[in-house]
């Protein structure tokens, strides 16, 4: 089933274009990797789907961005509600300066849920979902800052999952992590695929190859090529793609 889609999307910071005529479709329960050299527009593209770019002054969007076939930039779309449908994970682990428990409960609380038992259950299942439960179950009331970077990142994923989004947007989620934490997050992405549609920005080619079903290669604001990860990494049609994945530039 088609989950995410962009049609003829152009995006501008001021007058300089950051995305040029991007047409891309992403199926439910797949992982799509966005790759490309620095500054090519990957993060900008990712942020279209939870309208985070709205926070930046002086920007312009043309074209359509659709989730479940609905244009999310249409008039009458409630941005807060839209953002509940998507969970975002950032480059640097950024838990709130609250307890481990409260970090995961945060999304529930701000969305008006007050039932204590419900919150407790949801927090527990979500932390289990990111395979962090055994490590933190005895210190849920402790500050999230006491966790290691890798644990913090998994906590941030749990925080995003707690409100049960259907889409997860990840912007270089492992670039600040050590190899072991990285592979834990990658395993997690595999697990989560059965329930969510995942879009992940990464600079790590092996990672893209390991975790994704589809790969989209961006270059200077353009979508150069998209296809199954296998095809992109073994037999790309564009020379630019070939050069990039073999490390000849970027």
């Amino acid at each position, binding site marked *: 089933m088609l989950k995410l889609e962009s049609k003829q999307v152009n995006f501008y910071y001021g007058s300089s274009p950051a995305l040029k005529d991007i047409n891309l479709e992403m199926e439910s329960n797949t992982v799509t990797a966005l790759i490309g050299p620095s500054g090519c527009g990957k993060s900008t593209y990712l942020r279209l789907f939870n309208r985070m770019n709205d*926070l930046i*002054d002086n920007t312009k969007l043309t074209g359509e961005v659709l989730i479940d076939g609905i244009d999310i930039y249409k008039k009458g779309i409630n941005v807060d509600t839209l953002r*509940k449908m998507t*969970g*975002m994970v950032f480059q640097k682990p950024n838990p*709130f300066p609250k307890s481990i428990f409260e970090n995961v409960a*945060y999304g529930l609380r701000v969305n008006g849920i007050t039932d204590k038992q419900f919150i407790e259950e949801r927090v527990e299942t979500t932390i289990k979902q990111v395979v962090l439960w055994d490590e933190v179950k005895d210190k849920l009331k402790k500050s999230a800052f006491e966790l290691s970077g890798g644990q913090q990142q998994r906590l941030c994923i749990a925080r995003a999952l707690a409100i049960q989004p259907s889409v997860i947007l990840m912007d270089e989620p492992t670039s600040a992590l050590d190899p072991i934490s990285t592979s834990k997050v990658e395993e997690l992405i595999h697990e989560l695929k059965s329930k969510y549609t995942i879009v992940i920005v990464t600079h790590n080619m092996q990672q893209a190859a390991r975790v994704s079903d589809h790969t989209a290669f961006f270059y200077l604001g353009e979508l150069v090529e998209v296809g199954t990860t296998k095809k992109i990494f073994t037999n790309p049609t564009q020379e630019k793609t070939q050069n990039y994945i073999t490390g000849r530039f970027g």
Partner: protein
Amino acid sequence: MKQVDENKLAKSKKRKQSLAFFMFGFIGFVIVGILLTVLSFIVFKGVSVISWDFITKMPEEGMTRGGIYPAIIGTLCLVGGSMIFAFPIGVMAAIYMNEYVRDGIIKKIIKQMTNNLSGIPSIVFGLFGMALFVNKLGFGDSILAGSLTLGLLALPVVIRTTEEALKGVDDTFRHASLGLGATKWQTTRRVVLPIAFPNIITGLILSVGRVSGETAPILFTVAAYFLPKLPTSIFDQAMALPYHLYVISTSGTNIEESRPIAYGTALVLIIIVLLTNILANFLRKYFGKKVKMN
């Protein structure tokens, strides 16, 4: 290519390094020296006057004897009153500026205005306070009028320090919160403010320091020349430490005889400012820890 004498170069670099080191070290010492001189001068002159009676008794015999109790209380009332006024408004203004207004001409104008406001001489605030609070609004010479005037004076400081504190909060915290469907207000209240709080408190206390020493703004709005009783309501006049100091040094009944009391008053004023700074540090550390915990 010209041959560089490695040895010579290293020597000259080292010489410049030690010269610079000496210069900055020297200037540092001079500044600390001046500060210590001023402080020890006041302490030396004032410490003999200070006693329990001095800080808990009324002034006597044309302010040449007795204590400065009403002036201490007056100053505390004024500082407290001005903060009750300036703190919420200043913090709200800063939140509005930093979290809500988009960059642009309006924000620039407001910013410029607050900066200008902090550049206005405090005597002008005094005049304005007299015109507006004392006369126009009919509060008369009163703690209320004085507090409001001092509050105006403190407002730019509170706004600026709060803004800095809010700017110090990493944007990814905001994005993470908004990304979970939180509104801007929820994000501000539950994530941004708790992180910024320790620094906001510091700003508050810094403005307390500023306000407690001001004479000009209270001159025409609240300060009593001699009033050997405590204020009973916010519409009463009050004595205040800086003004008391001014009075007994320039226009007391017997300036020579009240000199020691002047030094004692100065010392008390310095101690109050010092204590607020220590308190600021303590609170910042305390809340800094608490933010991580809860």
